[in-house]
């Protein structure tokens, strides 16, 4: 009897190993397509956004945003898989393995992520407004030349209110990137084959009302509670 039980337990444990391997494969294939905290439930309000130039109503408590810098060692294959993030976590850039091409005489690349006031930049296309700060991402070889990207890097920005697009500023012109929005962490990210200035933008005008989501969630949760209460009541009546 005992060996059978042990055998079944071993087989079930193998299923657990398979589930673990499946999870690792899912993460490996998704990263860096989703370079955010994917299994994190941010069920508390985030820390206040740090503005370069805050709206008047937030200016009193505003903390200045921070930059991020990093040195990436280069090998013959180019750069390792790495990320450079602003010290306050509001912006970052991710390079996949080999994304920065190697260059004769260059042993490293310097990457900077610097917050900018969007008011100092050309206006975004009509009907859109920049949500939060713009960020300049610079990357140069230690020999001084701008880096050459062999594959796109991923830019991640946090936004304060409501963003629907990620734009890159090139030669006074904003280009729309193929962005992915993560409302759960108020982040937006996109792949880009150029460094430059990036900004999260949303429709001009007030952001969508949050109370609608709360109202739907409250109605659903009350309905679910009522269904369970009715189920418990019926069970009690039946003794």
């Amino acid at each position, binding site marked *: 009897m005992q060996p059978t039980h042990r055998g079944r337990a071993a087989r079930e444990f193998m299923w657990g190993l398979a*589930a673990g391997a499946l999870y690792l494969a899912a993460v490996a294939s998704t990263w860096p397509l989703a370079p955010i905290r994917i299994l994190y439930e941010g069920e508390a309000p985030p*820390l206040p956004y740090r503005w370069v130039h805050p709206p008047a109503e937030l200016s009193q408590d505003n903390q200045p945003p921070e930059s991020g810098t990093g040195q990436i060692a280069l090998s013959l294959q180019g750069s390792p898989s790495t990320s450079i993030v602003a010290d306050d976590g509001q912006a970052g850039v991710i390079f996949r393995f080999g994304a920065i091409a190697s260059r004769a005489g260059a042993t490293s690349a310097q990457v900077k992520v610097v917050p900018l006031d969007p008011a100092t930049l050309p206006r975004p296309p009509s009907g859109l407004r920049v949500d939060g700060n713009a960020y300049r991402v610079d990357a140069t070889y230690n020999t001084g030349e701008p880096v050459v990207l062999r594959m796109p890097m991923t830019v991640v920005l946090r936004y304060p209110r409501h963003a629907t697009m990620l734009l890159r500023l090139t030669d006074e012109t904003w280009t729309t990137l193929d962005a992915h929005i993560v409302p759960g962490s108020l982040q937006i990210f996109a792949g880009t084959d150029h460094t430059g200035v990036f900004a999260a933008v949303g429709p001009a005008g007030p952001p969508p009302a949050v109370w609608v989501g709360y109202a739907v*969630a409250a109605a659903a949760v009350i309905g679910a509670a009522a269904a369970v209460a009715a189920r418990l009541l019926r069970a009690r009546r039946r003794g």
Partner: protein
Amino acid sequence: MGGMRARADRARLFLTAAAVLLGCGALAARPAGGPTAWAGLPDLSLIVVVVVGMIGVTAPVPSEYENLLGRVQWVAAVILGVAAFAAARLLTAPIGPPVTALAAASTVVAAVAEEAFFRRLVYGWLAGGGPALAVVGAAALFAVVHLPAYGVRALPVDLAAGIMFGWQRLATGGWTAPALTHAAANLLQLI
């Protein structure tokens, strides 16, 4: 007599299905992120998750699925699950702003509440169709309710995480191993 019993079974099934679907609807509809004007206070989204978790704990599920003894040791299942999430965390360097202690605590509460709902109520609801349906069905619903907050690119990861939690539920016979593992997985994202 047989007709009455069939009617009662149908009503039970309907009410459980309603609780599951409405609970999933509430989790999917809760606004993510929370208004920054309320910084320092728990987000209303957390209250939604906690209520859904309480529904998961209190809703009746067939006792044959509730008290089924697992064949894998609880500690072994937790260690395997946490190891998988820790290894995955080492593969990545997620970008996100720093979080408050309140946010870290709320992510633990949310994890336990979600597991009470998905791995007790939803799993128990689907277990009549066999363990595979219960594990995969609960994982699929778990992944779908996270779509509005994390988007379609996170779907494979959420689905695979749900399958791991479902395996723990099946292997240990209870929902506490997945709850502890889920809480650990959420916290690992903050390191």
